[in-house]
């Protein structure tokens, strides 16, 4: 299966594909990482103020979550296509904007769940120690909400990397583009390599986020040891 014959035979597993298209594979892998990384990063940037907004008023919380839920319900291919006329067809902006919009439901919900789960006694104790509302949020509620926030970030990371694949249908999806091109050319090795790489990227990114959580919550480690 290692010779160039496997290319001619259109084998699923083909070493010659890897060696002959190395540059192309690396190009699309980097693009996939860039686009999903940008989407996840921007997702976090937007989720923080949105969560604080949702936290400030009870009716705002319901409205924000409803709106995010409505966006989340729109199938991805439809949303990509609907954004294209306004954001452009020659670049990936519509895909990134859609992925950021989808991530908000997951991130904001877990943000709120985390902040809600801080025990009332802890908040009372902090107030008693003289913490103002901002210090309370920043130094007590936020750290205690970190496990739930990271849980949301993990789900967001893995699903964003997978969802970007659909962008391949409009040729703006990193490895999804390689996958879809492989399908149109009936090129089995390319289809399999692209698919496997997407799954591997998702798993690796998940491991990275778990590592970040380990670094960010030292007190949890102490508890486990």
């Amino acid at each position: 299966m290692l010779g160039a014959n496997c290319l001619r035979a259109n084998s699923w597993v083909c070493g010659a594909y890897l060696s002959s298209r190395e540059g192309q594979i690396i190009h699309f892998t980097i693009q996939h990482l860039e686009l999903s990384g940008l989407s996840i990063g921007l997702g976090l940037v937007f989720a923080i103020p949105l969560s604080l907004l949702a936290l400030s008023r009870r009716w705002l919380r319901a409205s924000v979550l409803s709106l995010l839920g409505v966006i989340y319900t729109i199938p991805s291919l439809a949303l990509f296509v609907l954004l294209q006329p306004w954001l452009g067809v020659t670049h990936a902006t519509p895909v990134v904007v859609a992925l950021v919009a989808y991530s908000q439901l997951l991130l904001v919900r877990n943000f709120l769940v985390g902040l809600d789960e801080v025990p009332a006694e802890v908040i009372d104790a902090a107030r008693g120690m003289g913490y103002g509302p901002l210090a309370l949020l920043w130094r007590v509620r936020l750290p205690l909400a970190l496990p739930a926030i990271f849980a949301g970030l993990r789900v967001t990371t893995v699903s964003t990397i997978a969802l970007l694949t659909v962008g391949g249908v409009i040729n703006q999806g990193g490895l999804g583009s390689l996958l879809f091109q492989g399908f149109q050319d009936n090129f089995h090795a390319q289809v399999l390599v692209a698919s496997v790489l997407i799954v591997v990227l998702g798993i690796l990114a998940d491991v990275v986020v778990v590592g970040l959580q380990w670094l960010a919550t030292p007190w949890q480690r102490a508890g486990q040891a």
Partner: protein
Amino acid sequence: MARHPLATGGPGVSLPGQTISWLADGNNWRGVNGILDLTVDHLEVTGLSMLIAAAVALPLGIGIGHRRRGGRVITVVANAGRAIPPLALIIILASEPSFGVNTRTAVAALSVFAIPPMLINAFTGVRNVDVDALDAARGLGMNGPQLLARVEIPLALPLLATGVRIALLQTFATATIASFAGTRTLGTIIQINQATNQEQAVLAGALVIAIEALLLDVVLAWIQGAVKPGPRTRRRWGEGRPALDSVVAVSVSEAA
């Protein structure tokens, strides 16, 4: 391809205008590739995949939950379901000659991805049944199957329903891209018109898909509210949305 979509069409006719006239044209609603027929096809593929997935996921999730072990397996399935892009499986199956480009391939792929949400929710629902309730039932002399039928499943019903709702919405969404595996769904409108550069039709198709998904969500929320046991409370639309009650629960327990 490089053309800007706003630049297409006759002079002075904007893309939104063209899209609306495409939707207003009755010919685009009737016939084999009309919106109505494709909607029926889309719902058929979605429904069939859901039935197959439910037949696997619900008994399995309830069974594992009843034994109160095997949570790790459920977590692995949940994570795999999230990490594997449905489009990749659809394309792999469609490229493989033994499956090929046909409706059977699409249904196979869609069924696989409908399993995790139902499996997780069935498992979580049954496993989270209050231990006191189980003890009380045992005290009344109930055996395993009776416990399952009269206590665990009824108490797990809200989460079971949520799982079915998440799976159904997700299958409806994924059926859109399943058109590329050779089945006829609403995605077909996007697929055939993209190939011929009919931007207004592509846009109209996307609009129809988005609106139908939202309508389905409203209908499911209504059904879920109607069959919900206990006192009827008014709920704002979108509250208690499938939104991943289960994802939050599973992930938090992972993190803990």
